[in-house]
């Protein structure tokens, strides 16, 4: 069974002129790592949070979001609680905002297990998980303010592992880490996948990281999936101009210094209804057709699972990235 299956998912928020998620289709299988990349505000966090049934107040939804076959959008409060402390776990972007600064980290780690394990056993497991993320058990007695951002993020990852989840939703989990700690966290998540068959949805804006860790990639823009496919093929030859532009604007340690190829302009506001392709105003390939008709997400290469939502995907060239 597909661990996470999101189908024709639309999300509306109050006081907006267009759906913030406009028909998202996305799957993650057991043992699979799927990367979700895209512009800030494109809806990556809303998508991943939806898998836990965490919706903004006043949100209206259409479509389905299934975890292990059960639709999260129709779950009762009890079912949602069971989902969030067992089947699925989330690692958030900003550990400082997600962890109560006034509580000891030991309490933060064991809270989800209350009632399911004796206090001693819960603490033991917390110490084990801290060790797995490379932190000493003494962290259990410390407060969030006493740890650096990177150390706190590892505590958060340890917390996500506590309930043996089938699905991990990692929302920019390594943004606060240096690259070698990041590698260690990725190795840790890899290891868990091998041992427990965990499915991993990894939200990131680091395309190099997405390419290196994921089996498949989804690229999001303005609440839509604009391109998807196997990581290697997608990054070697992007078929949506937005993916190509993202690759071109990434700074690299081995590149010469100097100006980057930024994408001028900004993504469409939620207060404006959209006609045509949402990327058209910023797109170097846009034509009249693009301003009139929204492109569907269609297969671009007959033999593979690659799809792009672009009227000119055949003109989107190879990228040397």
């Amino acid at each position: 069974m597909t661990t996470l299956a999101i189908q024709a998912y639309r999300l509306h928020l109050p006081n907006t002129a267009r759906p913030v998620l406009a028909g998202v289709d996305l799957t993650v299988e057991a043992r699979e790592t799927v990367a979700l990349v895209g512009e800030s505000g494109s809806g990556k966090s809303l998508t991943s949070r939806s898998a836990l049934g965490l919706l903004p107040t006043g949100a209206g939804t259409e479509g389905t979001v299934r975890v292990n076959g059960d639709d999260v959008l129709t779950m009762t409060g009890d079912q949602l609680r069971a989902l969030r402390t067992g089947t699925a776990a989330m690692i958030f972007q900003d550990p400082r905002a997600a962890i109560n600064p006034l509580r000891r980290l030991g309490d933060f780690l064991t809270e989800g297990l209350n009632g399911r394990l004796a206090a001693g056993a819960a603490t033991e497991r917390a110490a084990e998980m801290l060790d797995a993320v490379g932190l000493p058990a003494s962290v259990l007695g410390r407060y969030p303010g006493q740890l650096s951002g990177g150390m706190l993020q590892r505590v958060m990852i340890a917390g996500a592992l506590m309930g043996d989840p089938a699905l991990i939703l990692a929302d920019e989990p390594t943004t606060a880490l240096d690259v070698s700690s990041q590698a260690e966290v990725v190795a840790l998540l890899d290891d868990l996948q091998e041992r427990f068959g965990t499915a991993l949805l990894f939200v990131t804006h680091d395309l190099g990281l997405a390419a290196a860790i994921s089996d498949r990639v989804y690229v999001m823009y303005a609440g839509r999936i604009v391109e998807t496919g196997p990581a290697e093929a997608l990054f070697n030859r992007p078929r949506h101009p937005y993916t190509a532009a993202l690759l071109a604007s990434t700074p690299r340690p081995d590149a010469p210094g100097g100006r980057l190829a930024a994408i001028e302009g900004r993504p469409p506001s939620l207060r404006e209804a959209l006609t045509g392709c949402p990327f058209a105003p910023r797109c170097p390939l846009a034509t009249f057709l693009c301003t009139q008709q929204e492109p569907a997400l269609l297969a671009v290469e007959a033999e593979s699972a690659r799809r792009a939502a672009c009227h000119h995907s055949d003109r989107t060239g190879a990228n040397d990235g």
Partner: protein
Amino acid sequence: MRKTVLEAVGLHRAYGGVQAVDQVSFTLAEGGALGIVGESGSGKTTTARIVVGLERADAGRVLVHGQDRTEHRRGRAHRLARARQVQMVFQDPYLSLDPRTTVEAVLRETLRLHFPGADHPRRIAELLDQVGLGPREAGALPRQLSGGQRQRVAIARALAVEPAVLVLDEAVAALDVSVQAQILNLLADIREQTGIGYLFITHDLGVVRCVTEDVIVMRQGRIVESGRTAEVLAAPQHPYTRLLLDSVPRPGWDPKAIAVARRSM
């Protein structure tokens, strides 16, 4: 040889038994850009906070234009003068912006405090223009702006004071690559136009390559390597710097091998 604008000499800071910053010294040339990279928990933020004056050093000195910042002289005038030497931009501008104050008002308040009697509307327009914000954003509250726009506001506010040095602590880490590219280009332009110096803390070696001239690499509170950025990245001397470079995700990247190497160090 350019003049030195910022000099840190033998900085130390301990928390309980942890040496967060241990014997850290560096110099930043006028109009230069110095990167700090290193392991998380290695003392980068603590170093930055000492430089800005948000944290006290147990030992060591911070000099701006040869003048000691660490000997705290009391009084509003001295406090403002210190603020004009060094300004800081944090990772998450949301936490450092007042949610009820519009962008324009933020800049107006800062200018009134530091330059009473000057022509503020003109300077506000100039600052907004410098960071690429328009009149629509000028009247907006922080929550009505995107992350990248908020970061521009934080930069504009820091620049309003006309500091000699801008300290940026993971200031582009939360931004997606396309917005990040805009901000990095913007920072390069500002440095060229104003001759401001940057102390730039980041985890991203690509970013360091792009915006800095010199770099120091920190580990466990200490500087393990320093030099010209291009040279350090092309030919790292210290094993930890080599580990950092090997850790940058790329095709064929092996996180397990890196994790093993990291733990055995």
